[in-house]
């Protein structure tokens, strides 16, 4: 985790101080993922449009590098995936408004590369990535509380007893964490 945070920091520094190097590094790290996500939301769209969308994602990353705060409680990667998803959805909306993008094209996936993932799969992947990432970033014992609550399905009372904290404390931490997750879901358009 620490190593990843260092990587994030280094990448952010590059993006801010030497954008061209930063973008290159970001594309190296996240390029493949950005393409897969964009493909899932824009199946069968023109190469030109696809690449335009991907470049928009990296521009947005550069623009938000200064704003990306470590207390978001999320890794840069997950944060970026959120950006990509939103960017791709916006592009799809715009293209279909312009009549350039027919939703029927979605049916024709034969021309797409073998690594193509459907929107649903990508959606679930993004969600999983984001949830795991954010819970991983929670300070103890919040991470444990979330695992007990949502993975093991313990009640607040049970968790309180296990962790020797009051029920109130558990409720509060869950409410806080949920709020953070909600914000992230909303920003990524998953909610």
């Amino acid at each position: 985790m620490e190593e990843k945070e260092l990587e994030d920091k280094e990448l952010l520094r590059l993006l801010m101080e030497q954008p061209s190097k930063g973008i290159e590094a970001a594309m190296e790290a996240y390029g493949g993922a950005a393409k897969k996500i964009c493909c899932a939301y824009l199946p069968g769209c023109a190469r030109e449009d696809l690449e335009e969308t991907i470049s928009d994602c990296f521009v947005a990353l550069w623009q938000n590098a200064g704003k990306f705060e470590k207390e978001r409680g999320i890794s840069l990667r997950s944060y970026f995936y959120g950006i990509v998803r939103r960017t791709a959805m916006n592009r799809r909306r715009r293209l279909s408004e312009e009549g350039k993008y027919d939703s029927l094209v979605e049916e024709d996936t034969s021309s797409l590369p073998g690594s193509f993932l459907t929107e649903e799969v990508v959606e679930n992947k993004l969600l999983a990535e984001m949830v795991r990432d954010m819970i991983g970033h929670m300070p103890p014992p919040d991470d444990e509380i979330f695992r007990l609550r949502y993975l093991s399905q313990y009640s607040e009372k049970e968790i309180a007893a296990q962790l020797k904290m009051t029920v109130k404390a558990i409720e509060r931490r869950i409410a806080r964490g949920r709020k953070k997750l909600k914000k992230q879901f909303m920003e990524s358009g998953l909610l």
Partner: protein
Amino acid sequence: MKKEIEEKIVNGMREREEDLLSGSLEEAEKIRIFNRTMAKIDILKEEQMYGNKKRRNVVPKKTFAAVLSSFLVVGLAACAVTYHYSEGFRAYFNQTDEKVEVKGEVVLSEETYEGVTVQVKEIIGDAYGCYIDYLIKNEGKTKLSPLQAGEVQVEGLADSLTILDPVLVGEEGDTAEYIVGIRTSESIQNKECRLILSNPGAYDAADNFVTAAAHDFSFDLLLGYEDSSTEIEVGQEISIYGGKAVLEKISISPLSVTVFLKETEKFTQYASDLKDGEPVNDELIVRFTDGSIRDSYRVAQDYDIFHDTTVISMGFHRIVSMEEIENITFAGVTIPIHENVSKEEEFSYQSNEMGIIVNMQKALFDLVTPSEPEEEAGEMFMDFQGEKDGVSMKLFTVYRTEGFFTAEEMKKKEPKRIYLEGSEDYTYSLRIWEPENEEEGQAFLEIQETYLAKLKERIRLTAYSKGKVSGSARVAAEVLKVRKEPSFYADTVALLPKEEAVELLETDGEYYKISFQDEETGYVLKQYLLVNGDKAALQ
């Protein structure tokens, strides 16, 4: 909405851990995208520079940035009752006493960044916690006001501590004053700590947090106090956490109470190791001579408590002298402090529908008539009408709002209400009404001052009501445990699969009693059922 988020969390956690999103771009593709990206960035950079120049002309740059490198020595409350403290603390601790002298303006330290100034004004505290009074000033750079810190961190104290949500205690023009509390299980005497207030900002109309100055405002503080706490040796054996311990002593300061245990028979690590029906037994209750109670299991609003296994510290959220404490109970052991003080007899109104008990002194009880609970726009409320000297006025109202809100959120929603407590299902608040005319004022002024000012502490929530319900629901969890009793200690009688239909029989705290598959019955946690007709189920 809550259910939807929870569903997403559960689904997200269940998804298999493999990264389908890995892979890379083809070389040619990469070059094309890179060129496009950089072209756009160059255009934006130009715009940004132009924009910056323009802005610089409008707002002259402030030059009084204060960089702090040395530590400040801060005196904490020695004997808080006669201690002089700021107006902010007075508001925070609900201290209405006239005898308390308010200290003049003190600024311990300040830092300015991009037109936002953060000042640390004053700190009071005791061995296991402190409260820091700070201001955030927005020099009119943006229209956002009042600003609040995006995040509050404290470094250098204990590994683990509770940082309370900052509470807004004052607001004037572009300046907001907050108190943030810290509670730990290790003594903070002579500890150097760093308070970091990050990225102050405010919520805009669309409820997005907008940062006004992306910066960590940090303050190095050296904490020291003169000990004024009273220690009471107890030495009694108690059963706790599934083991045994000696309740060694209780330490009481004007701000908090701390209990110290010595483990004599190993505590269980997990609740599941507790025997049937065996309680955790770590409830800490302080009873005050004025009839109010502070209970660690129901610490409303502030959550000013820290648990270690052998040290438990709870803030009073008021400033008290020993004379004001009647007794302290921990793990069922009651230690009398000032029990012989003649106590005013207490009367109470209880509403099972609302789940509240309102305790009142006789003088207040005699002139109050409660209304039946009414419902309006997702809220249930009860008005308490007062009648005195032929004048009738609405004295106070207790509200139960659906959903969980923090004190801060409630303040935004209903600024005139006093926050009582929020749980997963409901948030309780209280409104004390001001007299509307002279007549009302004359009749009720004394009542207002004597009884209503501290009414908040007299309202108990019976929280989860129990009763018959009807309706059907389906299982929302992947697998749902059905228990014999409405308790996690109870045996599991069945496991129900997702989407299984059940009938609701009773509500009991966090649980529903249900019947399922050929009239079998048992208890399940409410949050894992989607009740038919429920909003969440319709979505």
